[in-house]
Protein backbone atom coordinates (compact mmCIF):
# COMPACT_ATOMS: atom_id res chain seq x y z
CA UNK A 1 0.00 0.00 0.00
CA UNK A 2 1.10 3.58 -0.55
CA UNK A 3 0.90 6.58 1.78
CA UNK A 4 -0.29 9.65 -0.09
CA UNK A 5 0.05 13.19 1.25
CA UNK A 6 -2.17 16.09 0.25
CA UNK A 7 0.69 18.59 0.56
CA UNK A 8 -1.29 21.86 0.47
CA UNK A 9 -3.59 20.58 3.19
CA UNK A 10 -0.77 19.49 5.54
CA UNK A 11 -0.16 22.08 8.27
CA UNK A 12 2.60 20.22 10.07
CA UNK A 13 0.75 19.28 13.27
CA UNK A 14 3.06 16.28 13.56
CA UNK A 15 0.64 13.78 15.09
CA UNK A 16 1.38 11.37 12.23
CA UNK A 17 5.07 11.39 13.08
CA UNK A 18 4.25 10.38 16.64
CA UNK A 19 2.03 7.57 15.37
CA UNK A 20 4.49 6.27 12.75
CA UNK A 21 8.01 7.62 13.39
CA UNK A 22 9.56 4.89 11.23
CA UNK A 23 7.56 6.00 8.19
CA UNK A 24 7.54 9.81 8.28
CA UNK A 25 9.01 12.84 10.01
CA UNK A 26 8.82 16.63 10.10
CA UNK A 27 12.02 18.15 8.71
CA UNK A 28 13.85 21.15 10.19
CA UNK A 29 11.41 23.49 8.44
CA UNK A 30 8.42 21.65 9.90
CA UNK A 31 7.52 20.13 6.51
CA UNK A 32 6.33 16.54 6.49
CA UNK A 33 8.59 14.04 4.73
CA UNK A 34 7.22 10.58 3.98
CA UNK A 35 10.33 8.43 4.41
CA UNK A 36 8.64 5.16 3.51
CA UNK A 37 5.81 5.80 1.07
CA UNK A 38 5.34 2.16 0.06
CA UNK A 39 4.34 0.10 3.06
CA UNK A 40 3.82 -3.59 3.36
CA UNK A 41 3.79 -6.04 6.23
CA UNK A 42 1.28 -5.96 9.10
CA UNK A 43 3.32 -3.72 11.37
CA UNK A 44 4.07 -1.03 8.80
CA UNK A 45 0.51 -1.03 7.46
CA UNK A 46 -0.88 -0.71 11.01
CA UNK A 47 1.47 2.21 11.71
CA UNK A 48 0.50 3.88 8.42
CA UNK A 49 -3.20 3.46 9.24
CA UNK A 50 -2.64 5.01 12.66
CA UNK A 51 -0.87 7.99 11.06
CA UNK A 52 -3.71 8.48 8.57
CA UNK A 53 -6.24 8.24 11.38
CA UNK A 54 -4.68 10.89 13.65
CA UNK A 55 -4.08 13.54 10.98
CA UNK A 56 -6.40 16.29 12.25
CA UNK A 57 -6.92 17.82 8.81
CA UNK A 58 -7.24 14.55 6.85
CA UNK A 59 -4.17 15.25 4.71
CA UNK A 60 -2.97 11.61 4.57
CA UNK A 61 -4.43 8.65 2.72
CA UNK A 62 -3.45 5.03 2.43
CA UNK A 63 -4.16 3.65 -1.04
CA UNK A 64 -3.90 0.17 -2.45
CA UNK A 65 -1.44 0.04 -5.35
Amino acid at each position, binding site marked *: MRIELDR*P*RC*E*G*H*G*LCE*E*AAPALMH*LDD*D*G*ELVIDVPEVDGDQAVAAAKAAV*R*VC*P*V*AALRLVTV
Partner: protein
Amino acid sequence: MNPMESDIDIWDDDITVDPYPTYAALRELGGVVHLPKNNLYAVTRYDLIRDVLADPASFSSTSLGFNPMVNEALQGTSLASDPPMHTQLRATLSANLTPRALRGLKVTIDEKADKLVAELVSTGSFEAIDSLARAFPLDIVADLIGFGGHVKENMLRWGQAAMQVIGPLNHRTQESFPIAGELYGWCSSVTAEDLAPGSIGRGIFDAEARGDIPEGSAGHIIHQYLGAGVDTTIASIGNIVALFGRHPEQLELVRNNPELVPAAFAEVLRYWTPLHIWGRTTTREVELDGVTVPAGAQLGILLGAGNRDHRHYDNPDTFDVTRNPVDHLSFGYGPHGCAGQGLARLEGHAIVEALARRVKSLSLGDGYRVPSNITRSFEQLQVLEVEAA
Protein backbone atom coordinates in the same frame (compact mmCIF):
# COMPACT_ATOMS: atom_id res chain seq x y z
CA MET B 1 -35.90 4.66 7.47
CA ASN B 2 -36.69 7.91 9.26
CA PRO B 3 -34.42 9.00 12.12
CA MET B 4 -35.46 8.57 15.72
CA GLU B 5 -36.90 11.66 17.36
CA SER B 6 -36.42 13.32 20.70
CA ASP B 7 -38.43 16.21 22.15
CA ILE B 8 -35.52 17.72 24.10
CA ASP B 9 -34.28 21.26 23.52
CA ILE B 10 -30.51 20.93 23.10
CA TRP B 11 -30.11 24.58 24.22
CA ASP B 12 -32.12 24.10 27.42
CA ASP B 13 -30.22 25.83 30.26
CA ASP B 14 -29.74 22.65 32.29
CA ILE B 15 -28.61 20.62 29.28
CA THR B 16 -25.98 23.14 28.19
CA VAL B 17 -24.57 23.18 31.74
CA ASP B 18 -24.53 19.37 32.08
CA PRO B 19 -25.07 17.79 28.66
CA TYR B 20 -23.54 14.36 29.21
CA PRO B 21 -26.66 12.45 30.40
CA THR B 22 -28.55 13.87 27.40
CA TYR B 23 -25.68 12.98 25.06
CA ALA B 24 -25.76 9.39 26.33
CA ALA B 25 -29.52 9.12 25.84
CA LEU B 26 -29.40 10.58 22.32
CA ARG B 27 -26.42 8.45 21.34
CA GLU B 28 -28.27 5.28 22.34
CA LEU B 29 -31.35 6.43 20.46
CA GLY B 30 -29.37 6.69 17.22
CA GLY B 31 -26.34 8.02 15.39
CA VAL B 32 -28.66 10.70 14.01
CA VAL B 33 -31.59 11.94 16.08
CA HIS B 34 -34.17 14.43 14.85
CA LEU B 35 -34.83 17.26 17.34
CA PRO B 36 -38.01 18.97 16.09
CA LYS B 37 -37.86 21.61 18.84
CA ASN B 38 -34.53 22.81 17.47
CA ASN B 39 -35.32 22.04 13.84
CA LEU B 40 -32.13 20.03 13.47
CA TYR B 41 -30.69 16.55 13.23
CA ALA B 42 -28.22 15.82 16.02
CA VAL B 43 -25.21 13.68 15.06
CA THR B 44 -24.19 11.77 18.16
CA ARG B 45 -21.75 8.92 17.47
CA TYR B 46 -18.00 9.12 16.98
CA ASP B 47 -17.61 7.39 13.61
CA LEU B 48 -20.56 9.20 12.11
CA ILE B 49 -19.25 12.59 13.25
CA ARG B 50 -15.87 11.86 11.65
CA ASP B 51 -17.58 10.80 8.42
CA VAL B 52 -19.67 13.98 8.31
CA LEU B 53 -16.70 16.27 9.02
CA ALA B 54 -14.60 14.51 6.37
CA ASP B 55 -17.17 15.01 3.60
CA PRO B 56 -17.67 18.73 2.85
CA ALA B 57 -19.28 17.89 -0.50
CA SER B 58 -22.28 16.35 1.25
CA PHE B 59 -22.15 18.39 4.48
CA SER B 60 -21.66 22.07 3.80
CA SER B 61 -20.28 24.61 6.28
CA THR B 62 -22.44 27.41 4.89
CA SER B 63 -24.83 26.72 7.76
CA LEU B 64 -22.33 26.15 10.56
CA GLY B 65 -24.28 28.50 12.83
CA PHE B 66 -27.83 27.96 14.03
CA ASN B 67 -29.41 31.24 12.95
CA PRO B 68 -29.52 32.89 9.51
CA MET B 69 -27.98 36.17 10.71
CA VAL B 70 -24.74 34.60 11.87
CA ASN B 71 -24.45 32.44 8.76
CA GLU B 72 -24.93 35.55 6.64
CA ALA B 73 -22.29 37.43 8.65
CA LEU B 74 -19.79 34.58 8.26
CA GLN B 75 -20.15 34.32 4.49
CA GLY B 76 -16.82 34.61 2.72
CA THR B 77 -14.80 33.33 5.71
CA SER B 78 -12.94 30.05 5.63
CA LEU B 79 -15.09 28.88 8.55
CA ALA B 80 -18.32 29.06 6.56
CA SER B 81 -17.10 28.13 3.08
CA ASP B 82 -16.69 24.87 1.21
CA PRO B 83 -13.95 23.68 -1.15
CA PRO B 84 -12.65 24.90 -3.53
CA MET B 85 -13.06 28.44 -2.15
CA HIS B 86 -12.34 27.18 1.35
CA THR B 87 -8.94 25.82 0.38
CA GLN B 88 -7.44 29.25 -0.41
CA LEU B 89 -9.11 31.03 2.50
CA ARG B 90 -7.92 28.37 4.88
CA ALA B 91 -4.35 28.59 3.65
CA THR B 92 -4.35 32.35 4.23
CA LEU B 93 -5.91 31.97 7.67
CA SER B 94 -3.63 29.21 8.88
CA ALA B 95 -0.34 30.49 7.41
CA ASN B 96 0.58 32.12 10.73
CA LEU B 97 -0.95 29.44 12.93
CA THR B 98 0.73 26.24 11.79
CA PRO B 99 3.07 24.58 14.24
CA ARG B 100 6.02 25.57 12.05
CA ALA B 101 4.94 29.22 12.10
CA LEU B 102 4.48 29.11 15.87
CA ARG B 103 7.68 27.30 16.79
CA GLY B 104 9.36 30.51 17.89
CA LEU B 105 6.59 31.15 20.42
CA LYS B 106 6.90 27.96 22.44
CA VAL B 107 9.60 29.20 24.81
CA THR B 108 7.73 32.46 25.54
CA ILE B 109 4.43 30.68 26.11
CA ASP B 110 6.03 28.09 28.42
CA GLU B 111 7.75 30.82 30.43
CA LYS B 112 4.58 32.88 30.77
CA ALA B 113 2.59 29.86 31.93
CA ASP B 114 5.20 28.88 34.46
CA LYS B 115 5.49 32.40 35.85
CA LEU B 116 1.73 32.84 36.17
CA VAL B 117 1.19 29.43 37.79
CA ALA B 118 4.11 29.99 40.18
CA GLU B 119 2.64 33.34 41.28
CA LEU B 120 -0.81 31.85 41.84
CA VAL B 121 0.55 28.87 43.74
CA SER B 122 2.54 31.16 46.03
CA THR B 123 -0.71 32.88 47.11
CA GLY B 124 -2.05 29.62 48.55
CA SER B 125 -5.57 30.02 47.11
CA PHE B 126 -6.98 31.70 44.02
CA GLU B 127 -9.95 31.96 41.69
CA ALA B 128 -8.86 29.89 38.68
CA ILE B 129 -11.05 31.28 35.91
CA ASP B 130 -10.27 35.01 35.99
CA SER B 131 -6.72 34.70 37.22
CA LEU B 132 -5.59 31.78 35.06
CA ALA B 133 -8.06 30.37 32.49
CA ARG B 134 -8.90 33.86 31.17
CA ALA B 135 -5.75 35.80 31.99
CA PHE B 136 -3.38 33.44 30.20
CA PRO B 137 -4.95 33.09 26.72
CA LEU B 138 -5.96 36.77 26.67
CA ASP B 139 -2.36 37.70 27.32
CA ILE B 140 -1.06 35.30 24.65
CA VAL B 141 -3.55 36.40 22.00
CA ALA B 142 -2.98 40.11 22.76
CA ASP B 143 0.75 39.62 22.21
CA LEU B 144 0.15 37.54 19.10
CA ILE B 145 -2.14 40.04 17.40
CA GLY B 146 -0.27 42.98 18.89
CA PHE B 147 -3.01 44.90 20.71
CA GLY B 148 -3.35 46.29 24.23
CA GLY B 149 -5.35 48.90 26.11
CA HIS B 150 -9.13 49.00 25.73
CA VAL B 151 -9.07 46.21 23.16
CA LYS B 152 -7.51 43.84 25.65
CA GLU B 153 -10.07 44.85 28.27
CA ASN B 154 -12.93 44.07 25.88
CA MET B 155 -11.58 40.88 24.43
CA LEU B 156 -13.13 38.51 26.98
CA ARG B 157 -16.71 39.71 26.37
CA TRP B 158 -16.10 40.04 22.63
CA GLY B 159 -14.74 36.51 22.42
CA GLN B 160 -17.63 35.09 24.47
CA ALA B 161 -20.20 36.90 22.34
CA ALA B 162 -18.61 35.74 19.07
CA MET B 163 -19.28 32.14 20.13
CA GLN B 164 -22.67 32.77 21.71
CA VAL B 165 -24.17 34.22 18.49
CA ILE B 166 -23.53 30.95 16.65
CA GLY B 167 -26.47 29.54 18.63
CA PRO B 168 -30.19 29.66 17.75
CA LEU B 169 -32.09 32.94 18.01
CA ASN B 170 -32.63 32.63 21.76
CA HIS B 171 -32.13 35.42 24.30
CA ARG B 172 -28.43 34.59 24.70
CA THR B 173 -27.81 35.07 20.99
CA GLN B 174 -29.88 38.24 20.84
CA GLU B 175 -28.08 39.78 23.82
CA SER B 176 -24.71 38.88 22.33
CA PHE B 177 -25.15 40.20 18.80
CA PRO B 178 -24.40 43.85 19.70
CA ILE B 179 -21.27 42.77 21.60
CA ALA B 180 -20.09 40.51 18.76
CA GLY B 181 -20.69 43.55 16.55
CA GLU B 182 -18.19 45.56 18.61
CA LEU B 183 -15.51 42.96 17.86
CA TYR B 184 -16.43 42.97 14.19
CA GLY B 185 -16.33 46.78 14.16
CA TRP B 186 -12.89 46.88 15.73
CA CYS B 187 -11.53 44.28 13.30
CA SER B 188 -12.96 46.22 10.33
CA SER B 189 -11.33 49.49 11.38
CA VAL B 190 -8.01 48.35 12.86
CA THR B 191 -4.92 49.34 10.87
CA ALA B 192 -1.34 48.12 10.80
CA GLU B 193 -0.19 51.06 12.94
CA ASP B 194 -2.60 50.04 15.72
CA LEU B 195 -0.75 46.75 16.15
CA ALA B 196 2.63 46.24 17.75
CA PRO B 197 5.59 45.95 15.35
CA GLY B 198 6.79 42.36 15.06
CA SER B 199 3.40 40.89 16.06
CA ILE B 200 1.63 38.33 13.89
CA GLY B 201 -1.29 40.77 13.54
CA ARG B 202 1.04 43.39 12.10
CA GLY B 203 2.53 40.72 9.82
CA ILE B 204 -0.92 39.93 8.40
CA PHE B 205 -1.37 43.59 7.45
CA ASP B 206 2.10 43.65 5.94
CA ALA B 207 1.14 40.61 3.84
CA GLU B 208 -1.96 42.45 2.66
CA ALA B 209 0.09 45.55 1.79
CA ARG B 210 2.49 43.36 -0.25
CA GLY B 211 -0.45 41.83 -2.09
CA ASP B 212 0.24 38.30 -0.73
CA ILE B 213 -3.35 38.08 0.52
CA PRO B 214 -6.44 39.75 -0.96
CA GLU B 215 -7.15 43.35 -0.10
CA GLY B 216 -9.37 43.73 2.94
CA SER B 217 -8.72 40.20 4.21
CA ALA B 218 -6.38 41.13 7.09
CA GLY B 219 -9.21 42.38 9.31
CA HIS B 220 -11.26 39.25 8.59
CA ILE B 221 -8.38 36.98 9.50
CA ILE B 222 -7.81 38.79 12.79
CA HIS B 223 -11.55 38.58 13.47
CA GLN B 224 -11.43 34.81 13.09
CA TYR B 225 -8.37 34.48 15.34
CA LEU B 226 -10.13 36.42 18.08
CA GLY B 227 -13.61 35.00 17.57
CA ALA B 228 -12.42 31.42 17.65
CA GLY B 229 -9.33 31.48 19.81
CA VAL B 230 -10.35 33.13 23.05
CA ASP B 231 -13.45 31.49 24.52
CA THR B 232 -12.47 27.93 23.57
CA THR B 233 -9.00 28.11 25.11
CA ILE B 234 -10.40 29.69 28.27
CA ALA B 235 -12.81 26.75 28.58
CA SER B 236 -10.09 24.15 28.21
CA ILE B 237 -7.72 25.77 30.72
CA GLY B 238 -10.48 26.04 33.33
CA ASN B 239 -11.24 22.37 32.68
CA ILE B 240 -7.59 21.40 33.25
CA VAL B 241 -7.65 22.93 36.74
CA ALA B 242 -11.04 21.42 37.58
CA LEU B 243 -10.12 17.93 36.40
CA PHE B 244 -6.76 17.89 38.18
CA GLY B 245 -8.52 19.08 41.34
CA ARG B 246 -11.15 16.37 41.13
CA HIS B 247 -8.74 13.61 40.12
CA PRO B 248 -5.62 14.06 42.27
CA GLU B 249 -4.27 10.67 41.20
CA GLN B 250 -4.26 11.84 37.58
CA LEU B 251 -2.27 14.96 38.48
CA GLU B 252 0.11 12.70 40.38
CA LEU B 253 0.58 10.56 37.25
CA VAL B 254 1.53 13.59 35.15
CA ARG B 255 3.80 14.90 37.93
CA ASN B 256 5.68 11.62 37.92
CA ASN B 257 5.63 11.22 34.14
CA PRO B 258 6.01 14.62 32.45
CA GLU B 259 5.95 12.91 29.04
CA LEU B 260 2.20 12.51 29.69
CA VAL B 261 1.60 16.27 29.26
CA PRO B 262 0.28 16.09 25.67
CA ALA B 263 -1.84 13.02 26.47
CA ALA B 264 -3.28 14.73 29.55
CA PHE B 265 -4.30 17.79 27.54
CA ALA B 266 -5.88 15.62 24.83
CA GLU B 267 -7.83 13.77 27.53
CA VAL B 268 -9.06 17.04 29.09
CA LEU B 269 -10.32 18.07 25.64
CA ARG B 270 -11.98 14.70 25.08
CA TYR B 271 -13.52 14.39 28.52
CA TRP B 272 -15.03 17.89 28.67
CA THR B 273 -15.41 19.13 25.11
CA PRO B 274 -15.13 22.95 24.92
CA LEU B 275 -17.56 23.25 21.99
CA HIS B 276 -20.95 21.79 22.71
CA ILE B 277 -22.37 21.80 19.17
CA TRP B 278 -21.36 22.83 15.64
CA GLY B 279 -23.40 23.03 12.47
CA ARG B 280 -23.44 21.66 8.93
CA THR B 281 -26.14 21.43 6.30
CA THR B 282 -26.81 18.59 3.88
CA THR B 283 -26.26 19.40 0.20
CA ARG B 284 -28.26 16.36 -0.89
CA GLU B 285 -30.40 13.64 0.64
CA VAL B 286 -28.03 11.42 2.61
CA GLU B 287 -28.10 8.05 4.29
CA LEU B 288 -26.50 8.28 7.72
CA ASP B 289 -26.30 5.20 9.89
CA GLY B 290 -29.16 3.64 7.93
CA VAL B 291 -31.52 6.59 8.23
CA THR B 292 -32.46 9.17 5.63
CA VAL B 293 -31.76 12.85 6.16
CA PRO B 294 -33.28 15.19 3.57
CA ALA B 295 -31.34 17.68 1.47
CA GLY B 296 -30.98 21.12 3.04
CA ALA B 297 -31.33 19.79 6.59
CA GLN B 298 -29.55 21.52 9.46
CA LEU B 299 -27.23 19.19 11.35
CA GLY B 300 -26.06 19.77 14.93
CA ILE B 301 -22.82 17.90 15.50
CA LEU B 302 -22.52 16.97 19.17
CA LEU B 303 -18.74 16.79 19.47
CA GLY B 304 -18.91 15.95 23.17
CA ALA B 305 -21.30 13.07 22.56
CA GLY B 306 -18.86 11.58 20.04
CA ASN B 307 -15.98 12.01 22.47
CA ARG B 308 -17.83 9.81 25.01
CA ASP B 309 -18.92 7.13 22.54
CA HIS B 310 -18.15 3.69 23.98
CA ARG B 311 -18.10 2.34 20.42
CA HIS B 312 -14.82 4.18 20.04
CA TYR B 313 -13.31 4.73 23.51
CA ASP B 314 -13.18 2.14 26.30
CA ASN B 315 -14.65 3.43 29.57
CA PRO B 316 -15.38 6.77 27.93
CA ASP B 317 -16.76 8.34 31.12
CA THR B 318 -13.45 7.84 32.95
CA PHE B 319 -10.89 10.66 32.98
CA ASP B 320 -7.59 8.90 32.27
CA VAL B 321 -4.44 10.87 31.38
CA THR B 322 -2.75 7.72 30.06
CA ARG B 323 -5.40 7.17 27.39
CA ASN B 324 -3.82 9.60 24.86
CA PRO B 325 -6.93 10.08 22.68
CA VAL B 326 -5.11 11.87 19.84
CA ASP B 327 -8.12 11.32 17.57
CA HIS B 328 -10.61 13.16 19.83
CA LEU B 329 -13.19 15.36 18.14
CA SER B 330 -12.76 18.58 20.11
CA PHE B 331 -10.84 20.28 17.29
CA GLY B 332 -13.30 18.91 14.75
CA TYR B 333 -11.70 16.93 11.93
CA GLY B 334 -10.78 17.22 8.26
CA PRO B 335 -10.55 20.28 6.02
CA HIS B 336 -12.24 22.50 8.64
CA GLY B 337 -10.34 21.02 11.60
CA CYS B 338 -9.50 23.81 14.06
CA ALA B 339 -6.99 26.13 12.38
CA GLY B 340 -5.70 27.27 15.77
CA GLN B 341 -5.10 23.83 17.25
CA GLY B 342 -1.31 24.26 17.10
CA LEU B 343 -1.56 27.37 19.28
CA ALA B 344 -4.17 25.75 21.53
CA ARG B 345 -1.79 22.83 22.13
CA LEU B 346 1.11 25.18 22.92
CA GLU B 347 -1.06 26.97 25.49
CA GLY B 348 -2.67 23.84 26.95
CA HIS B 349 0.59 21.91 27.21
CA ALA B 350 2.27 24.91 28.86
CA ILE B 351 -0.44 25.10 31.54
CA VAL B 352 -0.54 21.34 32.19
CA GLU B 353 3.24 21.28 32.44
CA ALA B 354 3.39 24.28 34.77
CA LEU B 355 0.70 22.81 37.06
CA ALA B 356 2.43 19.45 37.12
CA ARG B 357 5.73 21.12 38.02
CA ARG B 358 4.41 23.57 40.60
CA VAL B 359 1.41 21.91 42.24
CA LYS B 360 1.32 18.88 44.50
CA SER B 361 -2.41 19.02 45.13
CA LEU B 362 -5.42 21.31 44.73
CA SER B 363 -8.61 21.45 46.73
CA LEU B 364 -11.49 23.05 44.88
CA GLY B 365 -14.72 24.78 45.74
CA ASP B 366 -17.76 23.69 43.76
CA GLY B 367 -17.27 26.03 40.83
CA TYR B 368 -20.14 26.76 38.50
CA ARG B 369 -20.98 26.99 34.83
CA VAL B 370 -23.57 29.27 33.26
CA PRO B 371 -25.83 28.21 30.38
CA SER B 372 -24.22 28.95 27.05
CA ASN B 373 -25.08 28.21 23.41
CA ILE B 374 -21.81 26.89 22.03
CA THR B 375 -18.90 26.99 24.49
CA ARG B 376 -19.10 25.00 27.71
CA SER B 377 -16.83 26.41 30.38
CA PHE B 378 -16.57 27.29 34.06
CA GLU B 379 -17.68 30.78 34.99
CA GLN B 380 -16.01 30.57 38.38
CA LEU B 381 -13.81 28.00 40.09
CA GLN B 382 -12.20 28.67 43.44
CA VAL B 383 -8.99 26.87 44.36
CA LEU B 384 -9.46 26.80 48.13
CA GLU B 385 -6.04 25.49 48.90
CA VAL B 386 -3.04 24.64 46.81
CA GLU B 387 -0.11 22.64 48.07
CA ALA B 388 3.08 23.66 46.27
CA ALA B 389 5.31 20.94 44.87
